[in-house]
């Protein structure tokens, strides 16, 4: 029994030795998230406008109900989102919006440093999301 105990502890101690830790010295060191990481959203731009056609599928599917879309008609008679806002305080980063979008107009980036001081700063408007 003691043998097994020592074996287990040796594994633990091995991980305590320098060069064996899996954490990094954040914020001095930052990790690159995987491609599939679900971080801050980004609205994909097209030629002269956003790719989003204001179909209302993402606000409909969003379980946290944090997406606000208001559609309108532009000068060319096209449908576009006059308003597109995500309330990051409510977003649960499930990625359903990305999955629902029929035109691949919304994606999730690797940005995860979303802390901020004021509530308003969590309102991600169309302009901010297009960046």
């Amino acid at each position: 029994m003691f043998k097994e105990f020592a074996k287990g502890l040796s594994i633990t101690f091995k991980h305590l030795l320098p060069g064996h830790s899996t954490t990094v010295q954040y914020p001095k060191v930052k990790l690159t998230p995987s491609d599939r990481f679900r971080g801050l959203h980004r609205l994909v731009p097209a030629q002269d406008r956003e790719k989003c056609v204001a179909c209302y599928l993402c606000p409909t599917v969003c379980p946290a109900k944090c997406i606000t879309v208001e559609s309108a008609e532009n000068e060319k008679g096209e449908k576009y989102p006059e308003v597109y806002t995500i309330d990051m305080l409510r977003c649960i980063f499930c990625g359903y919006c990305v999955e629902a979008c029929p035109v691949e107009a919304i994606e999730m980036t690797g940005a995860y440093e979303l802390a901020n001081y004021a509530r308003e700063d969590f309102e991600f408007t169309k302009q901010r999301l297009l960046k």
Partner: protein
Amino acid sequence: MVNLTIDGTQVTVSKTATIYEAAKEIGIKIPVLCYAKKLMPYGACRFCLVQVEQMKGRLIPACTTPVSEGMVVTTTSEEIEKVRKTVMEFLLVNHVLDCPVCDKGGECDLQDLAYEFGSTSNRFEGEKFDLPTDEVNPLIERNMNRCVLCGRCVRVCDEVVGYGSYSFINRGFETKIATAYDRGLSCEFCGQCVSLCPVGAILPRPFKFKARPWQIKEVDSVCGYCGNGCTVTLGVKDNKVETIRFNDEIGVNDGNLCIRGRFGYSYVNHEDRLTKPLVRKDGQLVEVEWDEALQVAADGLAKAQQGQGAGILSGARLTNEELFMLKQVAKTLGTENLDNSGGECYKGVTEGLKETLGVAASTGTFPQIEHADVILAIRSDFYETHPVVGMVVNQAIRRNEAQLLVVADKKGKLDKLPREKTLLSQPGLELDVINAMCKVLLDEGLAKTDGVDGVEELQAALADFGLAEVAKRTGVDAAALQTAAKQLAGAGNAAILLAYGLPYQGLSTELATAAANLAMLTGIAGREGSGLYLCGEKANSQGAIDLGILPQGNGLGARAMLAAAAEGKLDALYVVAEDPLSSYPDRDSIAKSLENVPFLVVQDLFLSPTAEQADVVLPAASFAEKDGTFTNAERRIQRVRHGIKSPGEARSDGAILTSLAGKLGSSLAFTGSAAIFAEIGKEVPAYAAFNYNEIGPQGVVWGGETLQPASRKLVAVAGGVAADGDFKLVTGSALYHSGTISTRAKGPTAVLSEAYLELCREDAADLKVADGDLVKVSGNGTELKLKAKVGNRLPKGVVFTPYHFAEAQVNRLYKGEAVIPVKLSK
């Protein structure tokens, strides 16, 4: 009845049913695309294919195949599924699939079916449609790239509306739906095609990109315009009525609406709506708090009542409950001067019908009209005032081969329907034609005189109405008149239609009396399936009559009140939901009345020309902002439901009247519309039979489907007087508008935005005027300039102008007569 088996279940249905309908009865859903409940079977899409054992397993469309005894039907099998899926693939070959930007997305039948069949790929490839779209039209957007050629728009416009805008053009893959010469739409804009298109090929333009169907809250209510009483389903988003939704499950209108009901809702959201009470201080109307405004109004009215008296004029767009409260206000105030809708136009009902038949309402219901064999419309304007009943008439003709007779001074939509016969008379002499018809029946022994009083007297009084004389006087063909009378008398089921309203005051009592005589002599009055219909112009015209918003005791009627005010013999007027200055006949004298009355309170949605003169203006709520009931022209009591909040501080008429009654010292208080409705039952026995909360989606009809006349007394009426003068002007309703309120709604004004003078080509050529020229119209001591509209609806020498537009001041010319002799010049 026929027995058959569908998917192993026995079902018994009527022998006129189709397989689809039989399956629906037992809850088996067969996919359909081109089928529509209210249209005749067509069979264009082949989604509904089923197998019938007796037909050697061939696939046949369920929506067009009638059931037969012993049929054994299979609605799903591997083979059927395969065929349906292939049909879908074919449809999707050229379909653009722009669902993300298509406003139909979410309620599109094609989308739903594709989802149901799991069609994710297509074995066939072809070019996508790339046809020009019509997005210029302010009301109806057409994008034929999304069309699935189901023909529902073509059929509804023909079968129901009777207009026939669309048809299929080109052939094969090029086939598309287009108007004549593939031009823009220029039609009634009733939007029936919009409501029936299963895909996003025909859409309501005002609703473009406004919302997705699932975001919309649906509120079932009643149209606030005419007495047709169509149920409408308000599409509400963010406290705004954004659209009118298609709904054929409720009401009597089968989902049919006219332009006013479907596209005329936007006045509700108008930015000019009154939002705060106004009181005149130092000559200016200034915004005040409710309490102050109500106090000023109450004090002013009470003071006037101490003096020479106060009068109350109401419109007929208040709910029954509000009208009841209005009566309470009158009682509390102690005035007997109470009236509605100008006090004249409805007298056909309250005097004409009351004297003859002893009832003050139409005797039949609208659905009965569809099964009538002969329909007589007095005045062709009936279609303009009550378009959806007009559609029922069209269906009666097309489905049941009814004969339509029209007695009118001008042609109209009704005259374009098949199997119609118009007896075109001189304006103002329709009365003579009806009298002559009565005489024909009496003379030829065709009249049903059992239990009818006054036969001899009528016979004597109608001595001058011989066929030949009347034909000469009115211009109606004698033989046609005689045939018409006989047809009406010989019909199993028949209907007589007559509309009343502010522009139809002249001879309103006489016409209704003559129509009632005819209804008695033909046996229409009180006969099951037949009816005499007197249809009010406003949503609750019948309610106003039922509740007795009429002069009480020795009180003054509307005309007398206005006359007294003009002479300085009335100290206050309280005008609710009316704009007399814009819509009552004889504008100049109304202006004088409003000027001379010392105290004027106006309660309305907008600062109307009348309200501008007021001392106190109370902002009221529209039909979309209140609860209650309306009674339509066939006596159907239907629920009006609250859909949105009123703008600013505007309150419902009911709430205002309750507070005002309180300020005047009434202690009466109700806990809501249901309580008031119950109270109404105590005063109006016919309403006592119903419970407010039990009024279902079809409403309730007081007096039953066929109202039995309380008396049958023929009352002779003298004929009309032919107007002299070069031209005879008649006024009335235009199809696109109703009253004056629709001129504030975007939809109707997009089609018709100003008054016009309609005249025939011949007259136009004589006067050398072209469409759009200004014409001077002089008569009745005034002169107006109106834009000419040249058409072929009117006979020579007759001109027409609609009365809706306040700016045109047509009511300076029109003083309540049936015809106005006028002179025209360029």
